[in-house]
């Protein structure tokens, strides 16, 4: 079974095919790695699957329903959430509010008067403690370090309690102890039988974490399969891993 699939997907930026007739599937309950050289279309693919950008051709299939369009607001309803390669937080808000803002019941009428209850706060506390940011809860996020910002964005995705998580280079620029936190979070999602998609350049991380790997090159699918097979593939080595 696979919740998310892309079929014959094409995305053109100023005449350049960033994603080129791509067909892939993301398997449920797996950690899937997406690798490929810079500019090979990894982020563009995730942007399409999460409705951030429209696409020209092909279709996205979410939960067996074929879609010619994916809207950002809908992805929450599909059980999808994501982080961004360049971290995107609510900059004018505190660390705690960045988490609380996603922890709501979202009823039509209560939306106006609902207040955060104790259980929301303790949920946010647990999530923030998981990424060592609880002491910073009242700080404006503008004051966080690069790594802390990255962790907060991942924490916000966790707070969404989704089924499918897309992480665009969650380890990039993190110190080892922070990497450890992110690795634990991803394993934790795996234990809960969630689906994780990970764009990552570090091959050792991919080898260690992923059940499957998708290799992209110039917008096309170069290879896919188990890490141990894919990373041995001669074409993958030639295109990406170098000698």
């Amino acid at each position, binding site marked *: 079974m696979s919740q998310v699939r892309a079929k014959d997907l094409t995305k053109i930026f100023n005449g350049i095919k960033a994603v080129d007739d791509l067909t892939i599937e993301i398997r449920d309950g797996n950690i899937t790695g997406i690798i490929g050289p810079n500019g090979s279309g990894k982020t563009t693919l995730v942007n399409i699957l*999460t*409705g*951030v950008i429209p696409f020209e051709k092909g279709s996205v299939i979410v939960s067996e329903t074929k879609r010619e369009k994916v*809207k*950002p*607001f809908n*992805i*929450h*309803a599909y059980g999808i*959430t*994501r982080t961004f390669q360049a971290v*995107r*937080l*609510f*900059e*004018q*808000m505190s660390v705690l*509010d960045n988490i*609380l*803002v*996603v922890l*709501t019941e*979202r009823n*039509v009428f209560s*939306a*106006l*008067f*609902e*207040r*955060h209850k104790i259980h929301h706060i303790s949920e946010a506390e647990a999530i923030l403690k998981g990424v060592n940011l609880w002491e910073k809860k009242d700080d404006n996020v503008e004051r966080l370090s690069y790594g802390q910002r990255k962790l907060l964005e991942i924490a*916000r995705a966790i707070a*969404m309690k989704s089924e499918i998580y897309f992480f665009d280079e969650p380890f990039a620029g993190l110190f080892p102890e922070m990497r450890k936190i992110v690795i634990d979070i991803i394993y934790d999602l795996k234990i809960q039988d969630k689906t994780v998609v990970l764009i990552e350049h570090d091959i050792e991380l991919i080898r260690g974490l992923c059940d499957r790997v998708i290799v992209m090159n110039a917008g096309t699918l170069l290879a896919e399969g188990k890490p141990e097979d894919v990373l041995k593939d001669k074409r993958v080595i030639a295109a990406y891993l170098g000698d």
Partner: protein
Amino acid sequence: MDIFIQLTLNGLIAGSIYALVALGFNLSYGTMRFFDLGYSALIAVGGYTVFFLSRQIGLPLPISILIGTIMAGIAGYIIYLLVYVPLRKRKASNMALLVASLGIFTVIQAVIGIFFSSQFRTLSGPVDAERIFHVFGGSITRIQVIILGTSIVVMFALAIIFRFTTFGKSIRAIGDSEEVSKIVGINTSRIIGYVLFIGSAIAGLVGILVGFDTGITPTMGFSLLLKGVVASIIGGVGNVYGGVVGALFLGLIENYGIWHISTEWKDAIAFGLLILFLYFRPQGIFRK
């Protein structure tokens, strides 16, 4: 000395009107991020609804005022649904939205003009204006006391909503980034709809209050909107409390400014102040 106190009182009353306008306008600007000129027409919608209901039909004042406020809110919400939602779906530029809002302003004030003529009208009977209180040697009419009280109540209510409800957090999140808000599951069009209803209702209330204090014309909202925007810029755009302080500051300066000169200079003083701020402190009083 008495003159000084009178000018201070006048300044605070003008300032609290500007503060309400700035609050309502900031709600809309803070979520939709464009200069909504249509907002000014809703001020007149409030004023004329009360004029119609209480002066022409003869409904009791409190009911007329309540309906007038809600009418402006509904009008703002309908405009959002019919004009801004489709335009924003098509990713219309801010310039396109601004022009659309100018169109809305023109249509609404023309329609009001057709039904009620563009003649200056007042909502209050002679009795209301005469009820005068004396404060520290200055005088203030009953309606002016109501203006001050209403502004304070609205400001506190909004401050509480902003601070303590998830709604307030969602508004701030949308102001920060609408796209990320969507991705984290905030129903942005619903929240913006609520925001515009509230902001438009505040506009209506302004029109009603001003209508009792000085009077109404179909285009009355335009200069009020400009003052509200000047107040926002002085206070720091996007900063809700900044807008309020900027508004009081503007009201006071305007009134102190005309101490020895004719009242016609008020607008010149207001926009002179704006130019000074844009030149020397474009981020406003409160922005870092």
